[in-house]
């Protein structure tokens, strides 16, 4: 442990000795997130019970120059919530109050530790829900969603987290509190809410969040189509998107993934002999309109060679079909000691080619890749099952991951669509952004956090940043002064 004693004492003075963790075993709980390939034990963990404690903690840490990392539920998939021995993890799960739900204005104000699905449950009596629905929604927190700009299956129609955040109260890395945006959604000044969302905990800690609520669709029809080739399924996706129809969700599972799901307790009745299945939701207010759209979707699916198309409107049938998709990562996690859930995006029309390329990469590196993903957005999740103890296999897994990222960038895509960069994808950032753009990102972060104390070492690979000119001009000014 490298944290100064007086810092630990000060922190204990703020949260009480029951709410600070310093023992090796206790810290181990916080040494990883949802991604098994990174492990870092923090110097200490504190569990504040409210905004005021967060402010006092950050003030102490800023005063002593100690780095800190906010943490929600720890389900992140890029190592974003990890901290080294010189840093303190601030766990926000106790800030879990839903402060207000305002149905007339379609918004709610929550603390960051509120679990995603709890908010939708609380809004349901008003006919509203919080639309972004990551597959981890039963555990992940709204604060974590804000930091990662989380997505989910239904973001195809309703938009990702950033489309739903109106106002943010943030504790800046010097302990100052700022309110960004407004409850109506208009910014006071530049769009700092938009900038903060997706900043992966590097601009400060969100302590109060006002989100937009969306009417719960009254009618939903779920379609399950199965295909004898991944390419045909991919082409069906492109056609649906280009047709002007806007399903609320359009997800794909490939054969390996279907096999894992069907062999698990989450079995959803997907056909195990298909090369790919598509799960599509069409929703709206009116049964007739939804049926008409579902019919149009079905026609496109069949035109692209769907072997069968099943329709489900009953809630129980729909829930079963969706259970397989939502729990797919869990099902995959059972078939090997370790699982990497990868995340990348490609233009939707490139899906068929890129999926074939991924299959080639899997064969080249002799790794087990299965795909379950948000096809309508082109947001891939190639998952790799492996055993970390097998060093050779682990090396091949790392090499295959890098090759998959390159393939997606070559196709005009991105290295992450919703899981963030964290530490895991730092090395790929220079493949997407030049040194000047990376430097601009770092300089922007320094406008919020000049000392770079909040979640240091993530997102922007400092070595790849060109020198930023404002820094030059500052230094010149200092010399002149």
């Amino acid at each position, binding site marked *: 442990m490298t944290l100064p004693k007086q810092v630990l004492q000060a922190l204990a003075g703020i949260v009480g000795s029951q709410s600070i963790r310093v023992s090796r075993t206790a810290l181990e709980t916080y040494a990883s997130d949802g991604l098994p390939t990174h492990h870092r034990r923090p110097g200490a963990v504190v569990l504040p019970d409210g905004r005021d404690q967060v402010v006092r903690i950050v003030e102490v840490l800023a005063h002593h120059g100690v780095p800190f990392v906010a943490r929600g539920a720890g389900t992140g998939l890029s190592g974003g919530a990890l901290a080294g021995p010189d840093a303190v993890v601030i766990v926000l799960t106790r800030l879990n109050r839903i402060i207000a739900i305002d149905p007339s204005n379609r918004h709610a104000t929550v603390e960051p530790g509120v679990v995603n699905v709890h908010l939708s449950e609380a809004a349901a009596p008003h006919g509203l829900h919080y639309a972004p629905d990551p597959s981890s929604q039963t555990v992940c927190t709204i604060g974590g969603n804000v930091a990662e700009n989380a997505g989910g299956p239904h973001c195809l129609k309703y938009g990702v987290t950033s489309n739903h955040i109106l106002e943010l109260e943030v504790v800046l890395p010097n302990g100052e509190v700022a309110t960004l945006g407004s409850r109506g959604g208009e910014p006071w000044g530049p769009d700092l809410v*938009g900038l903060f969302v997706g*900043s992966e905990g590097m601009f400060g800690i969100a302590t109060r969040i006002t989100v937009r609520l969306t009417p719960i669709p009254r009618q939903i029809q779920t379609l399950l189509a199965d295909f004898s080739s991944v390419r045909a399924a991919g082409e069906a996706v492109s056609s649906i998107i280009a047709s002007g129809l806007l399903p609320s969700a359009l997800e794909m599972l490939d054969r390996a993934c279907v096999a894992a799901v069907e062999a698990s307790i989450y079995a959803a009745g997907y056909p195990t002999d298909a090369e790919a299945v598509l799960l599509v939701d069409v929703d709206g207010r009116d049964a007739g309109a939804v049926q008409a759209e579902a019919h149009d979707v079905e026609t496109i699916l069949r035109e692209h060679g769907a072997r069968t198309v099943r329709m489900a409107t009953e809630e129980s049938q729909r829930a079963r079909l969706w259970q397989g998709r939502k729990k797919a990562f869990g099902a995959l996690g059972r078939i090997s000691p370790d699982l990497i859930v990868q995340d990348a995006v490609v233009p939707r029309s490139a899906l068929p080619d890129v999926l074939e390329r991924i299959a080639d990469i899997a064969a080249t590196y002799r790794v087990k890749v299965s795909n379950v993903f948000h096809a309508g957005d*082109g947001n891939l999740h190639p998952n790799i099952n492996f055993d970390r103890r097998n060093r050779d296999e682990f090396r091949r897994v790392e090499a295959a991951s890098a090759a998959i990222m390159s393939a997606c960038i070559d196709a005009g895509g991105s290295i992450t669509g919703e899981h963030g960069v964290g530490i895991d994808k730092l090395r790929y950032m220079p493949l997407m952004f030049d040194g000047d753009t990376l430097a601009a990102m770092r300089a922007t972060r320094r406008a919020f956090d000049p000392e770079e104390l909040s979640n240091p070492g993530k997102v922007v690979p400092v070595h790849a940043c060109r020198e930023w000119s404002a820094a030059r001009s500052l230094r010149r000014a200092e010399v002149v002064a």
Partner: protein
Amino acid sequence: MSSSDGSIERRLRALVGPDGQMTTDDDGTPNVAPSTATGCALVLRTASAEGWRVRIVGNGSWIPPDAPAELTLSSRGLGQVEDVHAADLVATVQSGVDQHALREALADRGTWWPVDAPGDRRSVGSLVATATAGPLRSGFGNIRDHLLGLTIVTADGHILNYGGRVAKNVAGFDLTKLATGSFGAFGFISSVHLRLRPIPRADATLTTNDRRDALLGQGQAILDAGITPSALELLSPVAGSTDDWTLGVRLIGSDATVEAERAAVAAACTARWTSLSSRNAADFWRDVQQRATQHATTIRVGCVITGLRQAINLVLHHLDDATITASIGAGVVRWSGSASAARLQLLRRTAAQVEMPVTIERAPWPLRNELGHFGLCREGVNRLMGSLRHTFDPQSTLTVALAGRQ
């Protein structure tokens, strides 16, 4: 303001070469319109090194080129729709492309950008830099929601590429959002990647006239019924050229959805609706867009939906009943007219007390300079805005009045 000896013009001519477009603004300021981002970078790098102040303009149809500067950098030379990828619903366009040209280029490929910003023949760069969304904001969101990325040239000439061309992307910080709606304070936008939609299959407009509060009530009733129209716009008598206030509802989607929503709107409220023919609907919405620029100044007031009545009352109290429109689903009131800085400042102060931000969307320079586009920001935000400005424009090369003098 202009260079009396013409030396800046000479330098600029040398920079942009024989193909570069150069003109002179009405106030004598040299106006340069490079045709590439690299050309813009060259101009800005030179300007910041020489200590010249630069004002950025698009078509000049929204904010006039009247800020004090040694030169005007225009997006006029950047007029290419570079790429429309209909299958992926993505387009890349240069910032000088005007709204109409964009609409046509997209329609040719069966696509559409759901932005109906006020003004006429505005450049895409201006729409993005000022984030002026129109009535469709109620259903489709703000300008920021229709962008995937952009290229920006900083005040000292660095070309930065934010975001990308894919539907979802969280690689790195979202600097596209910072650039959108910051009036060019963080650089010159040279091209943008747009998130498109397929051309809607059906598009219906309903209108009704009544007293203001009755119509606000109808609007709320529509929302309470769980309907989210694509536009739900309240127009003052002047804005609607009618004796009474007007509520315009626009429904966009598939034939079946639009018909179902039309029935749902009728069931949700007591108003008697007139259904406009497609030609009349197009005229109706075009008038809404164009009326904003008949006056020198346009502001927007942000509020929650139930605060619209109060927001409109504040505007009426402090200003006048010139052209007022309100996007009910989005909680935004827009006013266009003429008012003194003092009156606008009073409105801004009063509105701030009830948590309503007032943004000066367009106004003559003396007013912008006095009040700032954003003016009164909240504590904390002011400091952040200042340090971000310093980050992106350390020499204060770009004349943009974000904060104002008051």
